[in-house]
């Protein structure tokens, strides 16, 4: 830790005053106000990047808003750089008047703000005990989004009553495209704001589609075109990707993210002490609100209701907390989310029973479990289903 020394009175600070990493803060005038804040030199939360994505450090977060620079990433041809002055959104197809909107145009329309999560449909990894929540489920984050409701723009172009699907197309080098059925249009936002400020480049600057609760990939980033149609386009991302085997079939167009949860504390590689522990985590569902989270501290034999942090928002990460007195013995702790449709987050076994062993990598939302060892160490419990 390096302590910067500067203040409006720095000129008065006598040479020889001890200033160092462990100087007494009550006797050391600190730096004055600045243009942009920085993290404490003692804090280093980071995303975990791979070639294709980067993961949010869920275990380092205390609440539900993900700092924008820690928002997970998944892009298919890198982060596009878009000049906001040249940006335009085209809406055409089955409309009375095809139109182009500049970014300034978009910002002039009546605006809307909401907090909701985003999650990659491929979120969830297992395989070894030395995994953190970031490793297991880091492809989800939450922001406060602002933009213009898609319905406001569709009103301007005059959408045909016969229209039933639209194609959303990005302007990155993958020209990402997804077909969105009419049931997704009502809540859709063309978002230009994220956590108070402009969208971050990795989240689609200057504008993206936001479909609250729907799989991340449908929330097309760097959006430049919307084509109104009466059938899906069957793009690569909705056929050869983001589909998954279910017994002898392949399931496609799974838009809503299924309810799930994860305990973020305690988790690997943390250690716990015998005594009272507040088990903490997040739960969310693409189908509305979380109504209940249940926690088991005896490897799934019994379950009790956890406390949900108010306000519980629609399609939003919901904090849960559960008090537990650990007696120092080996055990497993688990959580399961229950959403307003009555859906209970299933076990991996239930998913395998329903879908077969060739599960694929999408829309897998099993209950996950942490093993607590007598020495207080916490390990992920990998499960194998093949």
């Amino acid at each position, binding site marked *: 830790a390096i302590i910067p020394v500067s203040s409006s009175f720095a000129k008065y600070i006598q040479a020889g005053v001890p200033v160092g990493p462990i100087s007494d803060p009550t006797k050391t005038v600190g730096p004055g106000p600045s243009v942009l804040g920085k993290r404490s030199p003692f804090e280093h939360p980071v995303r975990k990047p791979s070639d294709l994505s980067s993961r949010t450090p869920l275990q380092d977060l205390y609440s539900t808003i993900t700092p924008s620079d820690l928002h997970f990433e998944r892009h298919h041809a890198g982060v596009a750089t878009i000049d906001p002055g040249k940006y335009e959104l085209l809406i055409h197809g089955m409309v009375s008047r095809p139109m182009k909107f500049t970014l300034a145009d*978009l910002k*002039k329309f009546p605006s809307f703000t909401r907090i909701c999560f985003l999650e990659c449909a491929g979120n969830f990894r297992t395989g070894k005990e030395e995994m953190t929540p970031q490793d297991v489920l880091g492809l989800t984050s939450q922001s406060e989004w602002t933009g213009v409701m898609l319905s406001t723009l569709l009103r301007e172009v005059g959408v045909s009553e016969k229209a039933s699907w639209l194609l959303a197309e990005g302007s990155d080098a993958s020209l990402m*495209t997804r077909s969105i059925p009419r049931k997704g249009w009502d809540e859709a936002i063309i978002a230009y704001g994220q956590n108070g400020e402009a969208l971050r480049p990795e989240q689609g600057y200057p504008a993206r589609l936001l479909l609250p609760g729907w799989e991340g990939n449908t929330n097309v980033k760097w959006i430049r075109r919307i084509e109104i149609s009466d*059938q899906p386009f069957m*793009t690569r991302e909705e056929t050869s990707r983001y589909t998954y085997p279910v017994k002898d*079939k*392949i*399931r496609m167009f799974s838009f809503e993210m299924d309810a799930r949860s994860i305990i973020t504390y305690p988790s690997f590689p943390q250690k716990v002490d015998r005594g009272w522990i507040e088990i903490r985590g997040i739960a969310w569902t693409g189908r509305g609100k979380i109504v209940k989270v249940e926690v088991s501290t005896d490897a799934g034999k019994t379950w009790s209701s956890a406390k949900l942090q108010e306000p519980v928002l629609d399609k939003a990460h919901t904090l849960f907390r559960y008090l537990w007195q650990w007696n120092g013995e080996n055990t497993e702790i688990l959580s399961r989310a229950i959403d307003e449709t*009555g859906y209970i987050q299933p076990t991996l076994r239930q998913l395998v029973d*329903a879908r077969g062993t060739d599960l694929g990598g999408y829309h897998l939302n099993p209950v996950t479990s942490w093993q607590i060892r007598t020495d207080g160490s916490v390990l992920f419990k990998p499960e194998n289903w093949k």
Partner: protein
Amino acid sequence: KGQDTTKWPATFGFGRTATAQEISLWDIAIRPDGKGLPSGEGDAARGKVLYALKCAACHGENGRETPGFKLPAPALVSDTLFKSKPKTIGNYWPYATTLFDYMRRTMPYNLPGSLTNNEVYSLTAFLLGSNQIIKPDFILNAQTLPRVIMPAKKLFVVDDRRGGAEVK
């Protein structure tokens, strides 16, 4: 209380009409029925040459997984049995139009948007051929491509889950 009662106008007047030229420049998506396919044509022979030149570096010499070697890009060729691994065009892609659409917008990865329509037709023919879906001399164009029936098409079902207690 807490409500703006102003009636919305029929139009806010922001934005402008897009010209036909502007639309056609961006209107590149192709539907399974072939809507959106450009004129031009191609065949596997021409595709094979292009593939070796522009694609093999990432997708492998013949588009197949090479045991013991990790390709920087997905395999493109395999047999047409659903249960076989890896899942590629032959056993997992429901529409041939998707191949044209996807390759034209994204490939080659390092130079997206650089292929001509004829080149994309030829590469599509080559890859469909390599996956034993069309004959080696099949000519692909806006008329023939949508008629290609993919083996995996019959496997696809739309998710019918709507929440609720059942695990599906």
